[in-house]
């Protein structure tokens, strides 16, 4: 690996999309108009090519030298000799993330070329969209490339900004504007913890460079050479987890993601499914040294992930908006990834992140294609039997659904199975939760498939459905291939190349700290593993997926009176699910309203207490003035009288003394 090549690649990956964004934004409204997608497509394509080159560099690096820190320039000085720099950390994890991010982005940008023609906002929608999308690619790449916590924070906030801008893309709709603000603010709550975590890292270690921080954590030392206490490292890890919960929409900060579906479908696919929301998972994996140093934090990560996975899957059962079902499914799948890192299987989590990027982006884009055909309607109660009218969309959606449901031998199956496997060995209860979630996932996914694509053909009134054009279908097909085949990069037959590629990143952190270290990773253990330990779980989880699909088939295709009966027999549970466990209501009543009341109190204090005290002060001054005013009456006699009186008093005093 040559540092110079890596530096150039890194800079191209960042600057090409940024230049695309600036060009689309600046020239779009005046010159490019309908051609504004070109700067974005070219910028992202350049970034993708650079990411491939970078991947090649990392892959060809000799073992033990797969990581490199590349410094670009000094950013912020802080009074000490070590300024905060803009620098990259390039290792296999970075390479994989960059490939995923730029690759999926490129497909999404291409897809948007047609999609946004009809769904653009009235005023400069087209140009704005591509400018924001390219800006997002820049921000996400900055997040991934960063070699220190400060640049990570920059990317972290900047992707949040792009998410804000794109969720609020249709700003004329109050719901979209509110959803955008909600996303930003909920993320800010997470970032509150994240930012404090970063400050605490600096406070403890005196630096924000990944390499140095992780080194010191593993040595168990602080920056001044003291012993690192468990409490400190646990606090840091939990604060970072708080940030991850915000960005990756984990409990209890998940509330923004379903609302984020107000944005255009390509945005949901790219930002709210494939890339940005995985930043939390990436961050935990990257900070493995910190997290694995604290068993408590690891348990917390696993619990958050496991519970979120199940919790979101249950909500998805009752929703009817196709994109919201997918949003809850994203939360649930992100829960799997977080569970994965929490059970020391970071490579499996990243593997799931990788496969999930394909099939979830595919599902959102295909849903966008349905929406495109249905004139903007996405409620699965309002249409059905679309299989015939939208054949390509149907096929690609099917591929994505099977992968999501964990149907045997598709990508989602392999990656999810690995996570559950590790979860069962480390936290069996959470592993079982993962299995239940797998069943539910298959069920709600195919509930959606059957309702939307099977049954008698129904379309909303006044809609003339049509299959999408090739700009939209080509990315769908490419993603379908990924959704079906991406899992094969990490199976025994291909030598588990994904796992081995990532191994150097995690060998001193997750792999070394794992309680199941010997069993899961030791060569001897793998060699002697019997058929059942090796394939038993695969059969169980594959079976669960098929059971879930069959259940959906029976409920929604064969006995379609059953769902109504279930709903009627448990109205309260149904309503709870329908209302997403009342999280929004609780936050409104428990956090937002009290804060607003306090705010009103503050204004009241300003107007009455503080200004009242001021008035009192001035009133005292004025009162003294009033008291003295009679003496300044302007009448000579009065002055003469007081003069005589004064002289008399003085004379009296003098003589008396």
């Amino acid at each position, binding site marked *: 690996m040559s540092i110079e090549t890596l530096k150039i690649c890194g800079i191209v990956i960042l600057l090409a999309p940024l230049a695309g964004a600036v060009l689309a934004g600046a020239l779009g409204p005046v010159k490019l108009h309908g051609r504004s997608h070109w700067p974005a497509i070219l910028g992202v394509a350049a970034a993708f090519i650079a990411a491939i080159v970078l991947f090649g560099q990392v892959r060809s690096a000799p073992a033990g030298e797969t990581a490199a820190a590349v410094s670009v320039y000094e950013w912020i000085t802080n009074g000490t000799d070590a300024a905060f720099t803009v620098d990259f950390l390039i290792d296999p994890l970075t390479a994989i993330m960059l490939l995923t991010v730029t690759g999926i982005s490129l497909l999404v940008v291409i897809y948007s070329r047609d999609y946004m023609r009809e769904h653009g906002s009235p005023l400069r929608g087209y140009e704005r969209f591509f400018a924001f999308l390219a800006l997002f690619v820049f921000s996400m790449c900055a997040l991934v490339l960063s070699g220190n916590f400060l640049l990570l924070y920059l990317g972290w906030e900047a992707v949040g900004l792009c998410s804000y801008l794109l969720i609020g893309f249709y700003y004329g709709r109050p719901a979209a504007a509110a959803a955008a603000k909600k996303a930003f603010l909920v993320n800010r709550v997470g970032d509150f913890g994240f930012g404090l975590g970063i400050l605490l890292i600096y*406070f403890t270690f005196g630096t924000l460079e990944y390499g140095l921080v992780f080194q010191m954590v593993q040595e168990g030392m602080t920056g001044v050479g003291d012993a690192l206490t468990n409490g400190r490292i646990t606090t840091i890890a939990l604060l970072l987890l708080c940030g991850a919960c915000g960005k990756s929409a984990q409990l209890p900060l998940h509330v923004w993601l379903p609302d984020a579906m107000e944005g255009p479908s390509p945005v949901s696919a790219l930002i709210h499914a494939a890339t940005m929301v995985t930043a939390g998972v990436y961050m935990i994996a990257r900070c493995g040294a910190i997290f694995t140093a604290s068993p408590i934090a690891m348990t917390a990560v696993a619990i958050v992930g496991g519970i979120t996975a199940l919790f979101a899957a249950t909500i998805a059962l009752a929703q009817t908006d196709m994109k919201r079902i997918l949003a809850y499914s994203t939360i649930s799948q992100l829960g799997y990834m977080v569970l994965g890192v929490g059970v020391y299987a970071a490579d499996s989590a990243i593997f799931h992140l990788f496969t999930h990027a394909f099939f979830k982006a595919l599902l959102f884009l295909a849903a966008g294609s349905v929406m495109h055909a249905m004139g903007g309607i996405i409620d699965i109660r309002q249409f059905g039997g679309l299989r015939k009218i939208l054949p390509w969309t149907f096929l690609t959606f099917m591929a994505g659904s099977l992968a999501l449901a964990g149907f045997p031998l598709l990508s989602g199956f392999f990656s999810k199975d690995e996570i559950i496997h590790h979860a069962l060995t480390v936290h069996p209860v959470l592993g079982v939760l993962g299995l239940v979630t797998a069943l539910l996932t298959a069920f709600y996914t195919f509930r959606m498939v059957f309702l939307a694509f099977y049954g008698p053909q129904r379309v909303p009134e006044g809609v003339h459905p049509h299959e999408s054009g090739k700009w939209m279908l080509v990315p769908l097909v490419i993603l379908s291939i990924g959704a079906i085949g991406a899992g094969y990069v990490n199976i025994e037959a291909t030598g588990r190349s994904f796992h081995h590629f990532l191994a150097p990143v995690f060998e001193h952190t997750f792999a070394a700290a794992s309680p199941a270290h010997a069993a899961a990773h030791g060569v001897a253990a793998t060699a002697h593993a019997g058929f059942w330990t090796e394939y038993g779980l695969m059969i169980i989880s594959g079976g669960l997926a098929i059971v879930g699909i069959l259940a959906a088939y029976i409920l929604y295709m064969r006995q379609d009176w059953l769902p109504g009966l279930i709903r009627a027999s448990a109205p309260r549970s149904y309503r709870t699910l329908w209302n997403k466990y009342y999280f929004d209501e609780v936050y409104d009543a428990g956090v937002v309203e009290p804060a607003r009341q306090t705010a009103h109190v503050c204004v009241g204090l300003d107007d009455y207490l503080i200004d009242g005290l001021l008035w009192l002060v001035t009133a005292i001054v004025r009162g003294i003035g009033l008291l003295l005013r009679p003496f300044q009456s302007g009448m000579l006699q009065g002055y003469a009288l007081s003069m005589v009186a004064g002289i008399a008093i003085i004379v009296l005093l003098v003589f008396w003394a």
Partner: protein
Amino acid sequence: MDSWILTIIIFSPFVGAFALLLARRGNDAAIREGALYYAFVTLALTVYAVVRFHMGTSEGGGSGDFVLTAYVPWIVSGEAEGAAIDIAYRVGVDGISIWLLAMTALLSPLAIWSSFTAIRTRVREYYILLLLLQVGLLGVFCARDLLLFYVFFEFTLIPLYFLIGIWGGPQRRWAANKFFVYTIAGSVLTFAGIVYLAYFAYTTTGAITLNLQTLTRMGQSGEIPLNVQRWLFLAFAAGFAIKVPLFPFHTWLPLAHTEAPTAGSVILASVLLKLGTYGFCRLSIPILPDASFMLAPIVAVVAIIGIIYAALAAWVQTDIKKLVAYSSVSHLGFCMLGLFSLKVAGVSGGVLYMINHGLSTGALFLIVGCMYERYHTRDINKVGGLARQMPWLAFFLIFFTLSSIGLPGLNGFVGEFLVLLGTATSAGMSDGIAPGPLGFAYVIPAALGIILGAVYMLWMCQRVLFGPVKEPADTPDTSTGLTRDLTHREKSILAPIAICCVILGVYPKPMLSQFEVAIERNILGGPGVAMRASAGPDPSFPGSDDLHGRHGGRPLHGARNSSTASGTGLNGASGPVGAAAQVVGLAHPASEMVSFNGVVLDER
């Protein structure tokens, strides 16, 4: 020319004002263009000064000395050396004041330019007052004599009083009076402090002097007893805290802001409030270091209360200007927190915060002004969906909102981060300065203010820009030659500010490194304090120009960390990793820390 350039800058707007006075009444267009011309001349001169400053400091190795100085005896008796009374016209700039001067010179022409369509009555008087206001503001940042500082400081009140009182909104008289009386009540106490300081200097040195250089040296070498420092600190704080404004002395600000004309609000928020923080940073901290250290926790607590309190109050405002005004109170709380961390990172964050706040809040007031001129209302409830009507306005409003809520990559973040960093590490010694009084606990509530900052700003953006279009009847008013969206003039006013925000966010290092030199030498360091701080293997630090060589005397930790760093498999990372390794190595052994504390306590 160098020794006179600052004087020329300070008084060039005065010449402009005088020229306008001679201009014929009634020719409004010529008057406002003339005013703009003079403001731009001042800006050009300031740019020249900035360039000269750079050349001067790079020749001198960036020693942090005051340069471009001028001296004219004012009230002097006896010989110049050892005079019994030594009050003089002294000006000069260091790495801090040059940038504040530049910010003032940049914003003044923009504020004048923004008034072209808004001000229709008494045009000549308006621009004369704006230019006079600029004289005072520029003077404060250059003054190197306490009396001169105070004269300029108070002089700013007069033009602004008339600007608010004549061209303001419906409650302008009340607002102007409250502003004037409130601030002058505070600064009278400050003046009492100044007089006492002069007297104190007389008792110790035998000369009545208000030379800031002398006073700073006196303060930093510990010649002023703590008891005296404490009272002086309170006297200074009385004037400065009202000016900042620090909670609970802030109630004049929302009123003054809402009633002032746009340009008045801009100058008020961007520059005038900075006189308070600049006063703390230039007078209280260096001259009264021990009292600052002792009272810093109180100041910090008050600042934090202000951050949260004002952010909450901003959230429920329906008047946009009032919202931005409260946001100023909240932001300046951050600034104060950084200054009183008494650490290089915190103080340079605080100073940068002054500039950032000047840029972004000034721009926000300009934008509100653009809206008000078109819709004749600042009520959030009466407008909506303006992004559709005014995309350019929407762009700038969102941009400066992001700058104001500290989005990384823009200027606001750098200041905020350094403030929090300085506060968190205040008790450490990683920058070679004595441990400060604050600690990590202060960061937590302050960071809460960052969430709230996003809450109210985004709430405002959502209401004003998004949703269905809502405009008051018979608007937008384009009778004054405005267009529906921003005119070229308005865009040209906002664009330079936006560019500055980006530059400061992406590459703040050149400015920060100048701050740091100045802070180490003139604010925190000084010969005396620095000597105490570096009591150890490297006593040559204060005189040493080489900033980067000063920690060379402590190889122990540095060596450990650089060796471990090279063992992490991060090949080829010698630059940042090596540098960062040094930071770790900076920390002093515990025993040194204790003995150091002992010294300080003894001296107190």
